């Protein structure tokens, strides 16, 4: 175990990128296609024409940004079929916009030197599945929450903590 865990040790670099001018519909398809390769992060790093990091998007972030203003009225919410129709209309209406205009803004980023605790804080603050790692404006990788969690668990758990022992006995 290294003395200090940093982002560069946690990041994965086999992420996929997409141009900032790509249409939302293309990004959506790319994210769906990524599901066929679970060894790769289910996220796309969005870059400008010089390869600089602009943002990143996951299925959850894309749904959130596409449907940020989706507020179906009660009569629609109460009818599941209408709700579906309304949902598809809204998504279709935004299919042609550029992903650069549909990114969730203000997401935190790390550097390769960022330590474990700030990474935890970043992930928890925005409930992110991945934390982008940047160096000189370019993405060097993504820190998956799963790796962050595993590293934290490895750090805090001692051999004595292993196993399920309470079996409900410690809960009243």
């Amino acid at each position, binding site marked *: 175990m290294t003395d200090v865990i940093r982002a560069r040790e946690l990041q994965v670099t086999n992420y996929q990128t997409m141009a900032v001018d790509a249409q939302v519909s293309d990004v959506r398809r790319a994210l769906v296609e990524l599901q066929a390769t679970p060894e790769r992060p289910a996220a796309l790093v969005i870059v400008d024409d010089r390869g600089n990091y602009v943002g990143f998007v996951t299925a959850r972030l894309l749904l959130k940004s596409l449907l940020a203003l989706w507020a179906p009225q009660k009569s629609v919410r109460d009818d599941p079929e209408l709700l579906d*129709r309304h949902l598809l209309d809204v998504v279709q209406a935004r299919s042609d916009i550029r992903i650069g205009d549909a990114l969730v803004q203000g997401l935190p980023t790390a550097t390769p030197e960022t330590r474990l605790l700030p990474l935890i804080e970043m992930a928890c603050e925005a409930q992110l599945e991945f934390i982008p790692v940047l160096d000189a404006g370019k993405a060097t990788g993504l820190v998956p929450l799963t790796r962050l969690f595993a590293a934290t668990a490895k750090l805090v758990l001692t051999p004595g903590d292993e196993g399920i022992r309470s079996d409900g006995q410690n809960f009243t």
Partner: protein
Amino acid sequence: MSAADTDSPSRNFAHQTVDYLRSDLRADAVAGLTVAVMGVPQAMAYALIAGLPPVYGLYTAIVTCVIAAVIGSSSHLVTGPTNALCMVILSLTAHLPAKYDITLLEAVFFLTFLTGFVQVLFGVLRLGGIVRYVSNSVVVGFTAGAGVMIAANQLKNLLGIDLTGVHAERFHEVVIATIQRLPDVNPYAAAVGAVTVVVVVTAGRIHQRLPGALLAIAIGGALSYFLGWHLPEMGANKVDIVKDIEPISGKLMGFSVPSLVASPNYELTRELGLGAVALAILGLIEAASIARAVAATSGQRLRYTREFVGQGASNMVGSFLGCFAGSGSFTRTAVCFKSGGRTRMAAIFSAVWTLVALLLLGPIANFIPKAALAGILIVVAYSMIDKHHLKLSWTSGANPRLVLVGTLVSTLLLPLEYAVFVGVFLSIFILLRTTGKTDLTQLVPTEDSSFEEVPFNQAAPSPVVTINMEGDLYFAAAEDLDYELLRSLRPETRVVVLRMKRLRAVGATAMAMLGHFWELLRARNVHLVASGIEEELAEVLTGSGLRKQIGEQNLFYADNRLFQSTELAMARAWSIVRHEQSTSGVGTAEGASCPHIRARDLVSTRSIRFGYQHQLREAVWLMSGLLEHSKALSPEPLFLQSREARLYGELSPWAALRTLAAKTKSADAVDLSDADLAERLRQDLATSIATIARRDVGDLYADATLGEIIAQSLELDQSVVPICHDDGRLQGQVTSEALLRGLDEALHKLGEEEPSD
């Protein structure tokens, strides 16, 4: 207040005055002179129409012109006697002297005062907008009718026929009386009249700017004067001149309160009241339409309230200075504007030049033959029959034609004040009939997801009938509309969708109609769905209780996107149809336009279940072990279950990490080694996960639709949505990735996009 502040208004005024004197004075003076040259004979002749001595036409051209120019809004309107108003004045007052033992002038001045008062009232009460609702066909028809009346009335003067003692007020009476007296034609008067007509017509043809009327009365007057036809020696063939009616003294009439204003006669006031209103309306229509026509060219923004007050004040004040009711004169205004008049001073100059003419040429004007003035009026009367606009009104459809004919005929058959009201009434009646109408069409969905609008009741039979309502829906329009709507129903109709987006003026009667329509549908077991509901309509629906009756689930509110709410309403309608068909065993006909992905299509049963009574330490160990085993890169929560195996809540990786790091801030841990950090993070490992788990995880089942799952995931900010069995046990989970996949699939099924591989 500074000295500069005090001085600025007076300095501005001085600057404006100097500017005016330098740039506009000459142009206004010349334009005023041109108007006066044309207007003096016209004013004298118009007085003759009203049955008054010609000098009162001059007084009116001076006084009302100045006051209306000063107070009114238009910078170019020239006010004074007008032919149509004079005709009405004659109609209103001719019989009064005999009836009330008053002079005609007393009656006319009183009528003028009343007219001005009504006009000021119109202005003060801001009723200027009313004029907009009076059709142009009223003005065209009335003016043409008045022209015919003037011609008929002046024929006797033109031919020198004396109808004194003959009761002839209506058009047919005048024509018959004149024809009966044709053998008594005065050939000398007829000669003067004919010469006048020829000169006026010829001058107009030679050059538009030639003062034809002035030349005509000069030539006609000279003919009569130098041949001695005006002398008593001519006996029965004597040509009547202005002096014979009332000599022009060459001075202004002094200020005097009209006797009937000073001591009103109740009966007379009552009799003249309605006529004064008619006269006021006619005057305002004339003034407003002329001012508007000029303003369209000059670019001036008119204030009708001020214009009406100006017109009213000019008549009220005028009645104290020997004037009869005047209004904006089209010909004099047009001449003033075309002659280069730049400001309202041009109209004032025209009054000044008329005054000069009165003072200097008054004695000469006394020798103008009555037949010459009649000749001018015959030409004026002919020009009042505006053939271009008559044709336009006639060919513009049944409504303008009805107004035109109604006004024109009533001008000839009824007292003129009633003709004005007939025209105004017809205008408003047709306005209400046209606007008080709800247009109905039907909307039929097309293959490209839009709508085709087809004539009402001509759409192909379908279980869903979509009706587009457009226009006004106030009481006049609402009558019988419910039964009209019912005509769209076919035996197979199950739902009526009313698109109400473009409805205006929806009132209580309309709500009662809609309520009745809803009841009629209910009696036929047909559903009602409404779309395109704007905020205003929603309020009326709520207030009437109809919103509750129809049901919120059947109401769709107007959206920014065209037909958005109607598409949803249609989907709702088809949903009702399918539901009915499924419960009655009938197969689905059509309308399954929206593909439905349900939770069962997306759910993964590979969820991690855990007892809610455990500690965080155990949860962290379990989650990390599973992650290490699966090597997955997407985080998944622990779903906590109760002892009965029902879903209790959810512990996400974020919640676990947040709890571990709760007591340690990164700013305080910069220098900590990971070992030291680990010690700090361990502090809360014994926390019960029941206390940090989220309980609000929703309650979706396998038949939940994509929209429901996404709506919940957004609302509860869930990255993974649990799906339960009916008994509350966890069935599985739907991840955000699965939701995106479902969305992609649904869009693909909708046929608008290429599928993802």
